[in-house]
């Protein structure tokens, strides 16, 4: 690493203009993230043309801070309205919303903010110190390894099903089934599209996500709105978490941050996947698993630390190799190209001054996020003072705008409402929509990488055993499935008995 380039980058960021643009970018990101349907990727794409006339350092600082802000912003709506603002915040709903129902909205938001800050900071530091080293790792992940990751991800479904495992598996299977709608990668033939070209590219999972989580919530609010009690959340408690809470959560945040960085590193997986992985691991390591899904602060900290850590993680291959680690970083790469910087491994050397500016901007944006978050999140109180029926209408309006904004498609608004009604019925039937979302996210990754692996391996399944990375991941997946079966519990009990006897 060239120290002088690192310092040039630092001095490029620390100017009055850039610092104020970073704060502005973070605030804008916060708003965009909080709006359901508007993802960080979309905001970056829309802001991109504005940065053409700026100099590289200023433009990149603003884009990076927008990305960081949006990664946290998604959790605000998730916690207060049970509507994930971004796909990456879907896991935050599980414990964040129960917390706010219990009157701890402030606590949940505070934990989310601090976890996001630490996660983002970790990934920024990783980016600064390890980018060239970690970048090389990325090339080891091809279709075979991606398939193993997707299989491991699918096993999360088992531990996410609240209540009955059977209904969880059913929901997950439905998600996988719906994810097969659209063009088959290897044949170019549309499947289950009924000749409707709107379905040729498959179902945009953000559309399904908005419908499944938000519409049922709005309908439930309306159902209960004639009662005197107010179901939507207020921030009545303090926002800044106690020092003790933070220190207790620290191991969890560190673990989730590492998960986020690793998931971000791998092209094809992003914040949406990382947050579920982190949530699952947090639950796996917890002493009292029963509190998850009912308002466990660790269940908020884990996904939030992870999805902000993805930012730096995803930038590592982008910077070290010129390979975007996520759709958002693909747009950042586009921003570099517009500035006349061609993607490739020479980003760290030939264009080091601009690249290190971007890295420092990510680190500063996280500090900015903490400041802006502390000031702005309190303003969300006003949102929650509105009567339930109005909140419900606002949620539905936001959902419709969000679903339309993704592809400017009215068809997808209808699709979103369809998923909404289905999700409402699932809720009534006691089936959690979370496994279905996992199926939708990982289904296409799994199918694509499986088909590619089989082509590469000449139709032989042994291709999965030839890659050490894939073998390790598949073994973890097998263990994770076994862990949920009675056999494992029996082994555990008998082991414990034997230890006690000796």
């Amino acid at each position, binding site marked *: 690493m060239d120290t002088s380039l690192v310092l040039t980058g630092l001095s490029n960021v620390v*100017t009055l*203009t850039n610092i104020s643009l970073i704060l502005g970018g973070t605030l804008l990101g916060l708003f965009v993230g909080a709006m359901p349907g508007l993802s960080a*990727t*979309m905001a*970056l*794409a*829309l802001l*991109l*043309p504005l940065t*053409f*006339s*700026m*100099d590289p350092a*200023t433009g990149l600082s603003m884009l990076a801070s927008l990305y960081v802000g949006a990664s946290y912003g998604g959790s605000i709506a998730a916690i207060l309205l049970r509507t994930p603002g971004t796909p990456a915040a879907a896991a935050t709903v599980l414990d964040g919303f129960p917390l706010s129902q219990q009157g701890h909205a402030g606590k949940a938001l505070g934990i989310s903010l601090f976890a996001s800050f630490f996660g983002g900071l970790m990934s920024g530091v990783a980016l600064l110190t390890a980018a060239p080293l970690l970048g090389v790792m*990325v*090339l*080891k*992940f*091809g*279709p*075979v390894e991606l398939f193993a990751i997707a299989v491991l991800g699918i096993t999360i479904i088992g531990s996410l099903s609240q209540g009955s495992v059977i209904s969880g598996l059913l929901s997950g299977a439905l998600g996988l089934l719906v994810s097969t709608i659209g*063009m088959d*990668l*290897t*044949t*170019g*033939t*549309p499947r289950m*599209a009924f*000749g*409707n*070209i*709107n379905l*040729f*590219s498959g179902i945009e999972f953000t559309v399904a996500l908005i419908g499944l989580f938000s519409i049922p919530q709005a309908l439930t609010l309306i159902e209960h709105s004639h009662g005197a009690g107010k179901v939507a959340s207020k921030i009545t408690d303090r926002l800044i978490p106690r020092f003790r809470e933070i220190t207790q959560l620290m191991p969890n945040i560190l673990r989730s941050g590492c998960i986020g960085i690793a998931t971000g590193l791998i*092209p*094809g997986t992003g914040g949406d996947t990382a947050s579920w992985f982190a949530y699952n691991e947090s639950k796996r390591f917890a002493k009292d698993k029963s509190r998850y899904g009912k308002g466990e602060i660790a269940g908020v900290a884990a996904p939030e630390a992870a999805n902000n850590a993805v930012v730096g993680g995803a930038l590592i291959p982008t910077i070290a*190799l*010129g*390979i*975007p680690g996520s759709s958002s970083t*693909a*747009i950042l790469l*586009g921003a570099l*190209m*517009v500035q*006349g910087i*061609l*993607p*490739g*491994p*020479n980003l760290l050397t030939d264009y080091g001054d601009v690249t290190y500016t971007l890295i420092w901007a990510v680190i500063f944006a996280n500090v900015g996020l903490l400041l802006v978050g502390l000031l702005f999140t309190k303003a969300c109180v006003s949102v929650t003072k509105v009567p339930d029926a109005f909140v419900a209408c606002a949620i539905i309006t936001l959902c419709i705008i969000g679903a339309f904004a993704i*592809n*400017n*498609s009215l068809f997808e608004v209808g699709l979103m409402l369809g998923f909404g009604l289905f999700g409402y019925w699932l809720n009534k039937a006691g089936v959690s929509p979370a496994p279905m979302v996992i199926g939708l996210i990982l289904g296409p990754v799994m199918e*694509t990488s499986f088909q*590619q692996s089989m*082509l*590469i391996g*000449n139709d032989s399944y042994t291709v999965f055993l030839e890659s050490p990375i894939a073998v390790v991941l598949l073994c973890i997946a097998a263990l994770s499935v076994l862990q949920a079966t009675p056999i494992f519990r029996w082994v555990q009990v008998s082991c414990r008995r034997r230890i006690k006897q000796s």
Partner: protein
Amino acid sequence: MKMKILAVSIIASVSAVMASPMVLADYSASNEIKVLQGFKPGGGSDTLAQLTQPYLKELLGVDFVNEYIPGATGAIAWTRLTKQSPKDGGTISITNTPMLMTNYIMNDSITYSIDELTPIANVVTDPGIIVVPSDSPYQTVEDLFQAAEENPGTVTIGNSGVGGDDFFSTIIVEQATGLAFKKVPFQGDGPSATAAMGGKIDASFNNLGNVYGHIQSGSLRALAVFTKERLEMLPDVPTLREKDIDVVAGSSRGYSAPAGIPDEARQELIAAFETLKQDQEFQAVARERALNLDIVTGDDYQQMMKDMEDQYGVIWNEVKEEVSG
């Protein structure tokens, strides 16, 4: 200081906008041109729009408004353009070839065709290229083909997806040489190049703009390009034509309007692109953004589309059974 420059540039561009209609002829058809884009903002089509439209705006004296309608590899936007848009010259679209034709060649549910278009101008063509990992045993394109001859159907070649230009150029090469490759589709040129860099596939049929940086830095090696003549940027890389394989292919982007727009509007649009062809500044900016200009206007662009439609239609009919098998 930077803010001041920004402010000055805003004032400058605002005054340029206000001044332009006075000095230049107005576009006869409308005050505003809506551009339907079949892909997400920030992608390749958008890059073209951001490059071209500021210049067109000055030449035609109208504002350009982008509308992004992604989905079905552009087919939703192109169906909207041909079937549901006013034919007054106020709505045009960025047309990506050969995707524009392969969409409906491959799928009966996609019902538009190039006969329902008024092709205006092709603007850029990103030439096709064969790349291998830097540690690949294949030093030349002959090495690669020889390996495929010795072990038919096992040499893995990545492409950007079934229906894309790379997929079809692989088939053209197969037909010209009598070889059989293992075609591995990826979701776009980027993932295909990444898989080649990691040595997950033997080679990738890709496009120059996506891999040029990686070739420069040595993480990928270029074996051949699919152009008529060798490229200025890569003088040591042979064309397939030199190897007696007649493949000239790439991914092109241009502008088209619906069929039946007023002839006056068509002429004005074509004239604007003809002016751009001579514009030194425009060419410099395009080079800076690694875009390979290939401006072909009016009837020539229409002929280019027709030729591609014929060529790719024939190829697809030949391989249809094998692919969907």
